[in-house]
């Protein structure tokens, strides 16, 4: 019995019911709470906040719960919500020099003011499954002895040290206040345009898929690019967010966010007219996303080839390739749209292939007859 595969409202509603059942899993197992997700799956929350470009741990926890842990789906949920929010103000640039640092490592100096602050990291854990966690005894973690001295605040940035010696190129802010365009580009309001400014590129990379950036960053290290990077500094901590309300005319503090910042110090550039200087690659994420921030900094540097007069030869240096394919909400939607019906176009191709085969057969028969 032939039944056309056609949906309809009922099919969709039933599918949603099945999905709700799957999401909940075995009802005898206690439901996961948003606070549990926020507190115990914090790095997942951080990643979704970054790629979803919305700093709200509660909403992200909800998105992760609703998406059953599918982080790309959670990013999508968050983005679709974000787009409906009114834009009340544009913040002042955050000042990472004034960060309340919880972790700070530099690979370029053995020691420096403020020291190396290891902070919470998996870096030196031995990756052995911890079966104590499986026992779910909820034993409190071992108590931490207070440090002998408090973490320095503010803590000097490595880039400022190098910049002070003029060894690192200066950072130029996006937009030129003189031309009346002090605000950086915002690709959630305007489409990408090429050649893209660095503001456009950095925003795209910050929202970009961690896996995609990781692979691209890795490719620059393996020879598909020539960054020659040093991890100048990676720092994690809390920074203030300030806005200047029009009626006040001065900045007020509206809260604090956690960010991870990575400053890569790269291959120097110089010319007859300009002495040699190291070049920058920059990564910044919400929360603690170190892998992402580092990969972003590598790709940022690779994409700067045009302004640094390097020939773009590798995928990570190809602005259109990188920026058009970094967004996992776009990519996921378009890859998965292939499951929508395409039978009208397939029919068009079928008709053609049959016709071409018939032509071919006719030609062969004619040949044979001759």
């Amino acid at each position, binding site marked *: 019995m032939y039944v056309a595969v056609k949906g309809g409202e009922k099919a969709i509603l039933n599918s949603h019911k099945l999905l709700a059942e799957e999401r909940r899993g075995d009802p005898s197992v206690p439901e996961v709470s948003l606070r549990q997700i926020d507190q115990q799956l914090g790095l997942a929350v951080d990643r979704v906040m970054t790629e979803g470009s919305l700093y709200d741990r509660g909403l992200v926890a909800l998105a992760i719960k609703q998406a059953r842990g599918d982080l790309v789906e959670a990013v999508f949920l968050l983005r679709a919500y974000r787009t409906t929010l009114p834009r009340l103000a544009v913040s002042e640039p955050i000042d990472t020099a004034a960060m309340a640092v919880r972790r700070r490592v530099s690979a370029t100096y053995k020691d420096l003011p403020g020291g190396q602050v290891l902070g919470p990291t998996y870096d030196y854990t031995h990756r052995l499954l911890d079966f104590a966690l499986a026992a779910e005894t909820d034993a409190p973690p071992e108590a931490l002895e207070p440090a002998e001295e408090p973490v320095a605040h503010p803590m000097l940035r490595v880039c400022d040290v190098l910049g002070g010696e003029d060894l690192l190129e200066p950072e130029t802010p996006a937009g030129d206040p003189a031309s009346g365009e002090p605000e950086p580009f915002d690709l959630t309001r305007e489409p990408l345009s090429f050649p893209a400014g660095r503001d456009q590129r950095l925003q795209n990379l910050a929202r970009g898929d961690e896996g995609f950036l990781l692979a691209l960053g890795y490719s620059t290290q393996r020879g598909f690019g020539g960054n020659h990077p040093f991890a100048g500094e990676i720092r994690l901590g809390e920074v203030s967010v300030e806005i200047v309300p029009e009626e006040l005319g001065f900045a007020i503090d509206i809260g604090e966010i956690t960010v991870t910042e990575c400053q890569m110090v790269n291959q120097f550039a110089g010319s007859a007219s300009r002495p040699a200087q190291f070049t920058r690659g920059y990564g910044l994420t919400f929360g603690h996303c170190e892998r992402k921030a580092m990969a972003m900094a590598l790709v940022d540097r690779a994409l700067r080839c045009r302004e640094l007069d390097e020939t773009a030869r590798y995928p990570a240096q190809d602005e259109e390739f990188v920026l058009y394919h970094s967004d996992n909400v776009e990519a996921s939607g378009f890859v998965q*749209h292939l499951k929508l019906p395409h039978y009208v176009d397939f*029919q068009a191709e079928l008709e053609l292939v049959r016709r071409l085969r018939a032509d071919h057969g006719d030609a062969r028969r004619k040949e044979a007859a001759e």
Partner: protein
Amino acid sequence: MTSGIGAAEPMQTTRAAIGDSDPDGADRYNYAYLDEQTKRMIRRCLLKALAVPGYQVPFGSREMPLPYGWGTGGIQVTASIIGPDDVLKVIDQGADDTTNAVSIRRFFARVAAVETTEATAEATVIQTRHRIPEQPLREGQILVYQVPQPEPLRKLEPREGETRKMHAYAEYGLMHVRLYEDIARFGRIATTYSYPVMVNGRHVMSPTPIPKFDNPKMGGNPAVQLFGAGREKRIYAVPPYTDVRSLDFEDHPFAIQRWDECCALCGAGDSYLDEVILDDRGGRMFVCSDTDHCGTRRARGHTGRLGADAATAAAAKPRGAAR
């Protein structure tokens, strides 16, 4: 859940109201979902698109609650034009009852309090994916296409910077070369859908993945044709009564698909047909892809080889394929 395609669906006209029995909280969003500033931005782009038929206007596409690639461009265009006096029809593959069409129709019924219909003639706005309805459109109707890839030259040149220049200087030789390579290899142009068109004698445009069967309907159409590509962030348009020509060569003129069969349900011999597999022994039938067209014909008493009963189809003998 599923319905035999033979079962003639009654024309449905429903009015949804925002706010009452609204479990999804649609009343917390602006009318037609998009905020007013976004609508203004899209509206400005639409007028520029109409002013330069076939030219792709970049726009600040927003993230929609539906995935990219699933009609976000068409949805944003529809949301920017639709009002409470409109009657909306949504089709995918020519059918009103495919899941994505149902999903988009539900979305607008909910967020725009708009009347919906399956009847082409009753609709003021028709959002479509992959087809142009069989019934000729009239003045005042707006056809909104969902566009996966707005750039007709993209498969020849992946870089936006390059294709934009090609459009700027009307350098379309590459497209003709590609079509001619088909002729050299296959003896005919082997493009069957997304068949490129020249609009107003100036811009080469992607008609979206409609089968080339539908291309001739684009030119000189009394209705307004708007195109939205959400992921690629482009809007373009073809105003009514605009010259739209499918690219071809004097010795290989453009031709549309044709079938030896008629629609098995309504007997139409001039509509685009879908092939439906009936069994694992080569049994198949051909039916109109435009479900409203087919249903309307059957309601008027037209009958095809297998009549209006899908059950009959199960007993159908295997038949030859389309030529």
